[in-house]
């Protein structure tokens, strides 16, 4: 879009603090903008307002005690983070969870992914000035939270997974509710498309805005839907299938040029693919125990390290655990996707308008506490 304007005159520059308290920075993020009129000459995201020291905490807690922390790193997809941490420790120690537990985890993780995307959808539209889709999404999302509440007992920070299983078995009501939810979500697409996707104002606000192409993504380590919108079919669930993802038939949606509209489309399509995974997992759900009984509360992995990457709602996430043989990790590093996704803003925001900055910031879907850790 920027090419369409005349070359901005570099004089009377002034700086504007977008945040830390601002309606659309999604948490305590501050973007230091240098503006020329309404054009952004330079953008410098300032982060760290929500730094809680999760990595240091990880070194001071046993592996199991770190579990509640993981769902607080990214509170919107807490279950995905639980899941990933669980898999990382299981890989480190060699615990094999029973089949049923694997399926339960996948179903719940995908539900969590949908809820995270729905929330993104709502807040993104709110950034663009449409308030109503936000409430519609929350109506749908509430359904997921109710479903997950039934099994995990919590609505946001689940800590549902345990090494070698999950805390609670799912029942028939859960299965029924999940199927009903998938059906309901599919019937909602038409409304969403009529209200948002086809809307001419929305299309104009997002098309060709904030293009993150392949090259930029490579330089900044952008992953997740933002990378897939640029046309790279890179999804850890397909590339390095963990858990039982290799048994399901699903596609990785990709975009074409990586603008905000592509990112929007990719996320919407991803929700549909998650629905497919959930349906297949429910069909294949085996009977059996939901938790391995012999796992001690204080797991003691052998000396060594593991780097386990998985796909959270925002992109490629990884736990890097180093064990010295004690019940406490020697080092516990979390690779968070929003870190790279946000960093590329320094480049993407250049030569855009303030209004576009908000649109781009919303479209890359960051969770600030995840960056700050």
């Amino acid at each position, binding site marked *: 879009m920027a090419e369409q304007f005349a070359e901005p005159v570099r004089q009377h520059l002034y700086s504007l603090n977008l945040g830390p308290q601002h309606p659309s920075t999604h948490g305590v993020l501050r973007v230091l903008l240098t503006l020329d009129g309404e054009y952004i000459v330079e953008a410098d995201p300032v982060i760290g307002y929500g730094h809680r020291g999760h990595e240091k905490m990880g070194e001071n807690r046993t592996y199991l005690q770190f579990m509640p922390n993981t769902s607080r790193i990214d509170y919107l997809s807490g279950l995905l983070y639980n899941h990933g941490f669980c898999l990382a420790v299981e890989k480190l120690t060699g615990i094999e969870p029973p089949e049923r537990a694997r399926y339960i985890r996948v179903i719940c993780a995908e539900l969590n992914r949908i809820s995270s995307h729905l929330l993104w959808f709502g807040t993104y539209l709110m950034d663009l000035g449409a308030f109503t889709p936000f409430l519609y999404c929350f109506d749908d999302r509430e359904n997921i939270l109710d479903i997950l*509440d039934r099994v995990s*007992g919590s609505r946001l920070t689940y800590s549902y997974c345990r090494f070698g299983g999950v805390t609670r078995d799912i029942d028939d009501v859960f299965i029924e509710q999940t199927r009903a939810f998938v059906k309901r979500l599919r019937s909602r697409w038409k409304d969403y498309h*009529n209200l948002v996707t086809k809307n001419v104002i929305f299309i104009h606000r997002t098309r060709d805005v904030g293009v993150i192409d392949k090259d930029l993504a490579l330089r900044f380590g952008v992953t997740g839907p933002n990378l897939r919108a640029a046309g790279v079919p890179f999804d850890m669930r397909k590339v390095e299938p963990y858990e039982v993802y290799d048994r399901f038939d699903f596609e990785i949606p990709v975009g074409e040029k990586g603008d905000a509209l592509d990112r929007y489309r990719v996320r919407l399509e991803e929700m549909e693919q998650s629905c497919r995974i959930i349906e297949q997992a429910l069909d294949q759900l085996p009977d059996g125990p939901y938790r391995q009984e012999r796992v001690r509360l204080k797991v003691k992995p052998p000396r060594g390290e593991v780097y386990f990457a998985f796909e959270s709602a925002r992109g490629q996430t990884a736990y890097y655990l180093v064990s010295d043989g004690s019940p406490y990790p020697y080092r516990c590093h979390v690779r968070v996707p929003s870190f790279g996704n946000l960093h590329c803003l320094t480049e993407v925001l250049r030569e855009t308008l303030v209004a576009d900055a908000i649109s781009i910031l919303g479209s890359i879907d960051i969770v600030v506490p995840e960056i700050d850790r």
Partner: protein
Amino acid sequence: MGYWKDIVVGGRSLVEGMRVTGRALFKPVVTVPYPRRRLEMSPAYRGHIELKVFPETGTHGCIACGTCQRVCPSGVIKVQGVKEHARSGKVATHYVIDFTRCSLCGLCVESCPTQTLQFSTEYELAGPSRWDGVVDLVQRMEESRS
């Protein structure tokens, strides 16, 4: 011709959008006017912990072993127990939790060897003081029994 087509298509899309919200205007409301209507908590709901009363003994089964105290990630729990006489096991006399620091992970409930911990379904826990979160569960149990 693109100019006119854009106007027509764009205008149509706006009308479509208004139809969606217009229909919603007459749909039933989905929110709950909270203090007037309350929802049931789910069976798995994780509130703060409380001591379970076993009908056989008429009291809790806490033996003050301290497993929950050690497993708690945030150091929320403090248990104290006494031995009635030299041969008998310990019985908890004080079981203090600081709910304000609890992250509701449920590790204490899972680790309890006598299964005497359970989640309460209470959810209106706001209080004017930070010490309102500090509760002695043994005392609480006795109050609820009487």
